[in-house]
């Protein structure tokens, strides 16, 4: 009796093992098959290694690094409201578009409203006030008069 059941268990185990091996085999064949569909010439394994994509993994701190008061990734000034602005205002367009503009409170609010009406900007909720305050404090209009002096001239000796 005991002997029989051991034998039976043994053969059951054997079947399982066989099944497992079979499945592994099918799995490998399937993968190779799919791979061959994608790359029939096996080019990925040939000769000079194809340009590998090197993915640099930056840690969280580095990603939102601040240097000399500037948020490095976007160029925004580090001040209260920075991350709300980064997270809501750089999804569709570049931070460069924000930084090169100068507006007062009404102007920034009107711009947000225009983006909501025509450009698919979402409702900013309580972040709107934070973002507007950030923009007004850091990117206010400069008084330029009717025409400013020429600025940033790089002098050079002209050889003719």
């Amino acid at each position, binding site marked *: 009796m005991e002997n029989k059941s051991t034998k039976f268990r043994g053969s059951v185990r054997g079947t399982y093992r066989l099944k497992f091996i079979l499945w592994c085999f099918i799995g490998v064949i399937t993968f190779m098959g*799919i*791979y061959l*569909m*994608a*790359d029939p010439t096996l*080019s*990925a394994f040939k000769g000079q290694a*194809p*340009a*590998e*994509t090197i993915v640099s993994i930056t840690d969280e701190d580095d990603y939102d690094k601040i240097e000399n008061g500037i948020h490095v990734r976007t160029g925004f000034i580090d001040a209260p409201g920075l991350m709300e602005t980064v997270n809501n205002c750089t999804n*569709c*367009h*570049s931070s*460069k*578009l924000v930084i*090169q*503009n*100068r*507006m*007062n409170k009404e*102007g920034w609010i009107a*711009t947000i409203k*225009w983006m909501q009406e*025509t*450009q*698919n900007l979402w409702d900013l909720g309580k972040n709107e006030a934070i973002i507007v305050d950030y923009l007004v404090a850091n990117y206010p*209009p*400069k*008084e*330029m*008069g*009717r*025409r*400013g002096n*020429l600025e940033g*001239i*790089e*002098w*050079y*000796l*002209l050889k*003719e």
Partner: protein
Amino acid sequence: MERRKFIGRAALAALSASLGTEIVFGRNLPKGYVPLALQHPDPYKLFDKDKEMVLLNDKPWNMEAQAHLLDDKVTPNKYIFIRNNGLVPEGIDVNNWTLTIDGESVHKEKTYTLAELKSKFKQYSYQLTLECGGNGRAEFNPPTKGNQWTIGAVYCAEWTGIRLRDVLEDAGIKKDAVYIGYHAIDQHLSRDPEKEPISRGAPMAKALQDETLLAFKMNGEDIPLVHGYPLRLVAGGWPASVSGKWLQRISIRNKVHDGPKMTGDSYKLPCNPVAPGVEVNEKDMCIIESMPVKSLITHPKTGAMILNGKKLDIRGHAWAGELEVAKMEYSIDFGATWQACPIEKPANRLAWQHFSARVDFPKKGYYEIWSRATDAQGTSQPMLIPGWNPKGYLNNACQRIAIKVT
């Protein structure tokens, strides 16, 4: 079958993600396709632009020239400004590219392949000045919203293509036609497929001009992707946004075209002049048509130092939208006195014109050379910033370069 195809594609996608797709499938990419998703970190390489070009915006791409880069009579691609409202299209298939003429005022909607357009209609080449409506926006006070262009959003290239008129007439224009509006393949920044980033146009009179082209070539070569490959509307002398890139469809409208950037305050001025900073209702805004008279000193580069007693050769270009430039002057005393200098005739209507002069300085010191063009109707460039408007368009104030005589 469908299921197998799906599995195949899914497997391709999964595998290609891990294997370096560009190399494995590179040979299958259609000609003209830019596989980098245009997220290349170096726009100068990506768009073949000179390193001295100034990047204003990287999403969407916007880049302008500096005055001294625009010295060539016909501007080469590397110095041509980039203005985009949406995302530069990817995966353009020229073999299956078509242009459809439709709209309320077309006799019969008609679709042409690129090959048909090229073979069926006579081709023409013109040098055409294209200037961004917002060129010079950076100087308006109070500041106005948008890319802060200084002086480099202008150029004059040679365009080759067929007349828009010939194609519109082939499809048939109804008597009630008022405007044409273009539609293109570029994607909205939000990637919402329902939204067009820009769809502007022009009144029939402009659409039917000899020089209004459906262009295939710029400066004798395929139009660069970022400038509208493979087919671009080119309407010289008007805000460059009228010259729609990546054209797929032109609608002949029985009313003023109402696509994105035709409405609101886009490319419009207050119909009557307003005080700086005033809010203007949409109904009091009028669409900009011809660009105003303007000039650019392209040589020398600002900041030149010369020895006392030496004469200075200057040169540059002048243009006046639909009109010709009739007179060119420069001043070295902040506009107190003006010297006339010769201005060449344009290569063709709507091409910019070239001027040159030999300048004498009375003594050592700091000078500014100002250039002032006058159009055929007697209108000149202002010395100060012209009429303020809500979006900061049409700043055609005299250009200034700084010179030191030592």
